[in-house]
Each structure stands twice: as structure tokens, then as C-alpha cells.
């Protein structure tokens, strides 16, 4: 199959599924079955595209001419492929989980939910394969808008308020800062194409560079850099499959992915390194890592705690870009993958606990592990991966980031990363431990009757989270190939040569 056709199919398929879901709104089994089939096909298509890319297929598609010299077009490159692989692969798992969750929980408006979900995947694919900032911005906003109904899904006061914060921050930052940054870049550089090595070198004065970077760093609200992180905890009112795939993988990763793309293809890491424009961003990301982890410690609501953990972990990737070395970028790219598997597992576990027990607060979960062993063990594995212990995937990306920090001589950043790992231990492991120690189930006489009936969540919920937990383990052994995958990003970069000095 031609590469161009393949890209168009990858974009068209989720869009077609979105329409299909709306048409078959009253036939739940056909709707969900076909959507699952579609998700699997999408994943296979992305895999095929990956193979063709490495076989050297042509990879540019111009969709529409927007104005002279500016078009909406698609392009395949390693970072985008990695992102698309993760998002489409995890969509298949999440879809199964979503069916179990939505049915097990008696949520309403299934068709709207799955249709918006498919549209969000479409936007994600668009982001992954966009060839210039304009296209990326287009799909970025499409993603914000299509996830709004998902966040507001419950339609009660809490959901409305959460969705309002969500939309207000994401759209506000993107219109106020990102759009300004995009237009400014266009006026300065005369192009918006992503080019290896950046398009701004020599076109922007050294004093303006940090300002422009700030417009992007804060404009990409989806990267949840402090102080524009509030939308992520607010989005936790959404049903858990949304939190799992979108707010641990697709949406937030779209944010940091954009951040990496801007760093690598718009500014260029060498330019960033030589001008030092990203210094301030590095410190802000470091602050974000520590501060968000600290806040996570104090959260009793499991999903909120995970959300703050996500904010902290996203800043790892921003940090990787801000370090402006090839190792930092690779570490950031790697972290997109490893964190995706870890965090989606954690969220699915939180959802499974909610389906089985309707409990959301960590303090209520004593002893639950005995009743739901698979869920809690998966939670434990994923926690260890997030913390960064071998033999789990998360260890590699942290390792790469630490190397990058050491290369650039930022010893304090190494300290930050280590402190953060400790904080991760402090806020993740107690949840796991609480599941197995204390024997709260048996001693809590007041709720004995209720607990008697608790078992694992439906199979549809438990199998996916076991799969992704397994993924954390498998990815540890394949981290090398992911790294090789990303190397073209930094090939020929001066930082590669000087990095090891």
C-alpha cells in the first residue's frame, strides 16, 4: 500500500468510526464490536506505516492549501510514529476497558461517549503526523473540543465546573499564547514547517528567544506545566476510560509531544543549547516536578493523586527538551512511551476499583487487595515503573534524563529527579500497600455486608489493565529499540558530539 494512502487511512478511519458510532447508536453490541475492530485495524495500519517508514517510503501528504506558502499537510517522522503507535495501541485496550466500565457502571450516552472518543483519536493521529505548526494547531484544538463533552459527561454540577476549568485553561492558553507564538514564528521565520535543526536560527534575537519559547511552553497547556496545570485534576470528573487514555496518554502526551516537536523542529536543540533560551524552562519544569509530586502526597482521591502525578511526570519530558541535549530529547521521547504504559495502568486500576466498589478515596481502600488481587498487583507493577525501578520500563527514561542532566552539568537537576523518585514512592506505594495490609475489610464491621459482595471488576476491565501492566515489563527489554527509533531526531546534532565530553 502506498504510504500516502496509509496516512490518509490512519486519519480517516477514526473519523469514519466516529460517524459509524453515531449511526449505530441504538445497536450497542454491533457499535462496540465494530469500534474495537476499527481500533485494532488502526493499530495495524500504524504498524504497517512504521515498517514502511523504516523501509524508506515517501512520507509527505498535502491535504489543503491554506494560503500561499502555508498548507495543511502531513508528514511522518519518528517521534510522531512513536506517539501514534502508543496512542492507537493503547486505544484498543482502552476500548475494551471502556465497554466494561461504561456498562458495569451504568453510565449514560454511550454513543456520544464513544463517538467523541474516536474523534479524539482522530485528532491525536493528526497531531502525531502534522507536518507544520499550523496543522498541529488545528488538530490540537480539535482534540480540546472533542474531549470537552467527555469531561462533562456526567452533566452534573461537578462535571460542568470541571469541564469549564478544562476548556477554559486549555483553550485559553492555546488561543492566548500558542496562537500568538505560531503567528509570531510565521512572521519571523516565514515558514511553519517542522525542520530538523529548527527554523528560527539566526532569525530571532537572543533576547526574544526565551519570550517566544515561553509563548509555546505556556501555550501548550496540554503539557500541564505549572502554573497552567489545574485543568488536569479538574478533568478527573470524566469517566475513568477518559482519564486513562486521554488524560494519561493521548491529550497530555499530545501536549508534551508538541513541546518536543517545537523544541526539536522549530527552535532546534542546538539553537536552544547555544542561546540558553531554555534555561528558565528547565528550572520551571524542575519546580513543576517537585511541586506536583508534593501536592499528590496530600490528595486522598485516588484519581486526583494520579492526576498530580501525571503533572509531575509530564514535566520530565518538558525538562528533557529544556536540557537541550540529544540525550534529553531521547529521554523525553522514551518517557512518553514508558509513562504512557505505567499511568494508563494506574488509571485503569482506579477505574476498576470504582466499578467494583464505588470507592474513590484512598483511605477507604484498606484491604481491598485481597478482594481484587489482579487489580492491585497491576497497580503495584505500574507504580514501580513510574517510580523507575528495574526491570520496569520507567527506569530507562529516568536513566536517560539523568544522563542528560549529568552531561550538561546540572547536578541540581539530578537531585530533583532523585527527590522526585522518592516522592513517587511516597505517594504511590501506600495505595498499593493499603490494599494488602491492615486487613481493613475484615475489621470494618460497619460495612461488612457491603464488602462481602466485593469481587474483581468485570473481566472487560481487569484484562486490559493486566495487559498494560505486562507492557511496562516488556517495554523494559525493548527500550533499546525505542531509543534507536528516536535517534534520527538528534542525528547530526552538535549536542550529540559534545554531549559526552
Amino acid at each position, binding site marked *: 500500500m502506498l504510504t500516502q494512502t496509509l496516512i490518509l487511512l490512519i486519519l480517516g478511519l477514526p473519523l469514519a468510526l466516529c460517524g459509524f458510532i453515531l449511526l449505530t447508536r441504538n445497536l450497542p453490541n454491533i457499535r462496540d464490536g465494530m469500534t474495537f475492530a476499527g481500533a485494532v485495524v488502526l493499530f495495524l495500519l500504524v504498524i504497517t506505516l512504521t515498517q514502511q517508514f523504516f523501509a524508506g517510503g515517501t512520507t509527505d501528504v498535502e491535504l489543503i492549501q491554506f494560503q500561499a506558502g502555508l498548507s495543511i499537510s502531513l508528514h511522518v517522522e519518528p517521534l510522531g510514529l512513536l506517539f501514534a503507535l502508543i496512542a492507537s495501541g493503547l486505544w484498543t485496550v482502552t476500548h475494551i476497558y471502556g465497554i466494561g466500565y461504561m456498562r458495569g457502571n451504568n453510565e449514560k450516552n454511550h454513543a456520544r461517549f464513544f463517538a467523541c472518543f474516536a474523534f479524539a483519536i482522530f485528532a491525536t493521529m493528526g497531531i502525531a503526523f502534522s507536518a507544520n505548526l499550523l496543522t498541529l494547531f488545528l488538530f490540537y484544538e480539535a482534540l480540546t473540543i472533542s474531549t470537552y463533552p467527555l469531561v462533562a459527561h456526567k452533566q452534573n454540577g461537578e*462535571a460542568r465546573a470541571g469541564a469549564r476549568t478544562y476548556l477554559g485553561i486549555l483553550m485559553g492558553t492555546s488561543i492566548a499564547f500558542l496562537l500568538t507564538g505560531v503567528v509570531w514564528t510565521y512572521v*519571523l521565520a516565514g515558514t511553519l514547517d517542522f525542520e530538523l535543526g529548527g527554523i528560527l536560527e539566526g532569525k530571532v534575537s537572543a533576547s526574544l528567544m526565551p519570550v517566544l519559547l515561553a509563548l509555546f511552553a505556556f501555550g501548550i497547556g496540554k503539557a500541564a506545566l505549572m502554573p497552567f496545570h489545574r485543568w488536569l485534576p479538574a478533568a478527573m470528573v470524566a469517566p475513568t476510560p477518559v482519564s486513562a487514555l486521554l488524560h494519561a496518554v493521548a491529550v497530555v502526551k499530545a501536549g508534551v509531544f508538541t513541546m518536543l516537536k517545537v523544541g526539536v523542529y522549530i527552535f532546534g536543540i542546538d539553537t536552544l543549547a547555544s542561546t540558553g533560551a531554555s534555561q528558565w524552562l528547565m528550572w520551571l519544569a524542575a519546580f513543576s516536578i517537585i511541586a506536583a509530586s508534593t501536592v499528590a502526597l496530600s490528595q486522598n482521591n485516588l484519581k486526583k493523586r494520579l492526576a498530580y502525578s501525571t503533572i509531575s511526570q509530564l514535566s520530565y519530558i518538558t525538562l528533557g527538551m529544556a536540557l537541550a541535549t540529544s540525550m534529553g530529547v531521547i529521554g523525553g521521547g522514551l518517557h512518553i512511551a514508558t509513562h504512557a504504559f505505567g499511568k494508563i495502568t494506574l488509571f485503569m486500576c482506579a477505574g476498576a476499583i470504582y466499578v467494583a466498589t464505588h470507592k474513590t478515596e484512598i483511605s477507604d481502600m484498606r484491604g481491598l487487595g485481597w478482594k481484587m488481587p489482579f487489580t492491585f498487583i497491576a497497580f503495584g507493577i505500574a507504580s514501580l515503573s513510574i517510580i523507575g525501578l528495574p526491570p520496569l520500563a520507567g527506569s530507562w527514561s529516568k536513566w536517560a534524563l539523568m544522563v542528560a542532566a549529568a552531561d550538561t552539568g546540572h547536578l541540581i537537576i539530578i537531585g530533583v529527579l532523585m527527590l522526585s523518585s522518592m516522592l513517587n514512592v511516597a505517594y504511590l506505594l501506600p495505595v498499593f500497600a493499603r490494599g494488602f495490609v491492615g486487613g481493613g475489610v475484615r475489621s470494618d464491621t460497619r460495612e461488612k455486608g457491603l464488602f462481602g459482595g466485593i469481587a474483581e471488576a468485570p473481566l472487560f476491565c481487569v484484562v486490559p489493565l493486566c495487559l498494560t501492566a505486562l507492557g511496562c515489563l516488556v517495554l523494559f527489554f525493548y527500550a533499546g529499540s525505542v531509543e534507536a527509533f528516536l535517534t534520527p531526531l538528534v542525528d547530526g546534532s552538535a549536542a550529540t558530539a559534545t554531549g559526552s565530553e
Partner: protein
Amino acid sequence: MLDFALTHAPILTVLLPMLAAPIIVIAVHRTAAFILAQLASLGSFGLALYLLALTQDGTVLSYHLGGWAPPLGIEYRVDAANALLLVVITLLASIVLPYARTSIEQEIDPGQHTLFYACLMLCVAGLLGVTITGDAFNIFVFLEVSSLSTYVLVAMGAKRDRRALSAAYDYLVLGTIGATFFVIGLGFVYMATGTLNLADIAQKIAEQDTNRTLQSGFAFIVVGMALKFAMFPLHRWLPNAYTYAPSIITTFLAATATKVALLVLMRFLFSVYSTTFGFERDTVVFVLLPLSLLAMFVASFMAVFQPNLKRLLAYSSLAQVGYMLLGISLLTTLGLTSTMAHMFNHAITKGALFMAAGAIIYRTGTALIPGMAGLGKQMPWTCAAFVIAGLSLIGVPGTAGFVSKFILLQGAFDKGWWFLALLIVASSLIAVVYIWRTLEVLYLQPVPEGRDIKEAPFGLLVPLWGLTLACIWFGLDADLVTSASQAAAEGLLEGRFQPDATVIIGPEGR
């Protein structure tokens, strides 16, 4: 026949709707009236497209009425700028008519339907005339034709709400004041130059040094037109007129009327006078620019607190006029391009929004936003169109509104006025607030007990979705509008309106 039509395209564009009006009155039958009006506007639309195609390369067409050569005879002059606006007006007229056929059944007594169509045609003819003519006094005449018919059309909303009468009266008083100012301005110009042909005036002004008579004339013309396009502190007539007029009239006026007055301002500013003169430049920089910013913020802010959907959209229109005025105030090609593009994009966006509002009012009978709770379930197609058009109003990428805002921002940065760019994006954030306030009511609130309404009738949905899809189409394939707008902007700035660079078509030419 076709050859004849093309040769006389400039005059026929105006003449078709103008002649349709009296015939419609004679026709009496409603359906016949509708068909006549529809044919006339479609014909005009075709001719306008033809004129637009002719002027794309920078050609300026000159048509001498009755073969009398200007400056004595009346001349119609078409350049890329007014050709684009001709297309906007005729396009909107053609789309609005099928909608009107269904919507006025509720809003206007059946006996008045033919009169409604006749007035609408007169209004279209007036707006087209103002846009196309190259004669200063002719502008005034057509302005009055369109204004007088507009007063009648606004007053026709009285069947639903008696306040339409006082709104029309307000509009009449202020509109007349505006026209008077304009005519006084023309008087000054005539006094100084002794001619009424725009191109000729331009030449005479270029020959003599700027003087106080010309400056006073300019000031009067600016104020007169500012009243007509509702520049911020002179906007008082607009919210009421838009709120109480029949929905379809609001749609048509919001999409076209203010833009025509803006074009007249641009015509005088760039083609007749010149921004190289200190006085004119100062007027733009120290008066129009701050007032446009004020409009963007104050009007958007007021829109946030309006309980009436039509009034909310009316205030948003005021803010959008601010954007267009801001584009003019930049005095650069990019700025003017954004203004011209926004004229088109805002016409389809606001047209779709008012149509959606009209369809909601058609079913629910109320224009108050709290009365629209849960409509997303009961009128899914109408509300979906409202969402898309609303996004276009905010300027979300992929919609028409994004294109013009993108160019406007480009213009601001190009000029080095980055603080202006920040103000532009800040004010569009307010649009997010007032659009989303409505969307939350439409979608996230439960359907009230006992309200059982159906989706809007087909006759309303088809034109509505036509415009909505146009919002998306022109948001993605922006090249068409952008290049037309750029041709218009370059023509205006480079003074191509002058007599010598002109192709004469009509009775003696060709």
C-alpha cells in the same frame, strides 16, 4: 443574451433586485414573490462572481451609465475590494431567501409577505448600489434606499414583539443623522473639488494641498459612516434593531449592512483621500484604532452578560466590527487583507449563528438563553450548527473565523505591534466565554419537564447548514478568500482606483 448580461454586468447586478421589488409588489402571490426574489438574487450573485473574477488581477472596471462619460455622467467602478463585497451581499441574499420563506410565516402577517420580499430586494439593491458606485452622491442615494427599506424590515418584527417599532424608530433617527453627516461631508468635498465622481475627487485632492475644507469633509464622512457601521460609541441603535427585527432580517443585516458602510469608509480613506496626509492618518491612528480596541473589549464583555441570544450575538457583531476596523487601522496590506477576509468570513459565520438562533426561536418561541436548556437533545442539527459557527466566531482553527484572525495577528506582528496581538487574542478569549455560556445551556442542562419540541423544519436547516459547512470549508481551504482579499487590499493601498488604470466596459467599451 449572456453576452449582453456580461457586458452590462455592473449595472445589472444592482438592477436585478431593484426591478424585482416593484414587480414583486404587483405579483401579490407569496410564492411568486419568493421565486422572483430568489431568481433576482441568484442572477446578481452570478454577475457578482463574474465581476470578482474579472478584477482579481488588479483590473479596475469602469461602467458609464447611459454612455455618459464621467465625471459628468454617473460611473460604476468595480475593483477587487467592492467585487468581493458584492459577492458577500448577493450570496447572503440568495441563502437568506429560502430560510425567510419558512421563518416569516411565523413572524410576519401573510398579507405582508410580498411587501417583505419587495423591501428585502430594495435593501439588497441599495447595499449593492452603495458598494459598486463610483459616484459620491450616488452612494448617498443608495444608502438611503437601503436604510429606508431596512427601517421597514426591522419594524416588521412588531408582530412578535412590539418593541421592534421603537427599535426601528431609534434606528431611523440615528441612521438619518448618520446619512446627514455623510451628506454634509460630501458638501464640503464638493465645495473644495467641484466634482462628485470619486476617482475625479481623488485626482483633484491630489492636485491641491490638503486644506481645512477637505479635512472637515473627511471628518463628517467618517462620523456619518461610523454611525452606519456602528463604531463603538455610536452603536446604540444596533443591539435593539438586531434583537427585535425578524430573525432572517437580523441575519441579513448582521452579515452585510455594517460591512457596506465599512467599505465606504475604506473607499474614502484609501481611494479618495490618502493616508499619506497627516490629518487622515491621525484620524485613523488616534481615533479609529483606540475605538476599535474599545469595541473589541467592551462589546464582547457586554455580550457575556446578555440573557437574550439575539442581543448577545448583536453585541458580538459590534466587537467583530472592531476587528475589521482594527485591520483598517493598521494601514498595511496584511491589515486590510484581514479586514476584507473578515468581511466574508464574519458574514458566513454570523449568518449561520443568527440562522441557528432564528431556528431555535422558531421552535421554542423564546430568545432568552435560560429557556433553551437541553435543546442539544431536541434540536441536534440546529445546535450542532450553532456549535460549529460559534467555534468559527471564536476563531478556532479549521473554521473561517480563524483565517481572518490569523492574518490580523500576522499584520500586528508584521508591524511590530506585539501588544496589539496580545489584545486581539485576549479579546477573542471573551468570545469563548459568551459562546460557551450558551453551549453549556444548550447541551449540559436537562430538558425541562413537559417541553416537547421537534427539530427545526427543513426549510430552515438547509440554508443554516449551507452556511455552517461554508464556515468549515473556507476555514480549511482559505486560499480562495485570502487571495481575493489580498488583491482587494493591494488595490486599495496602491490607489488603483485612479482614472487611468481602468478598463471601460458597457455601452461604449468592449
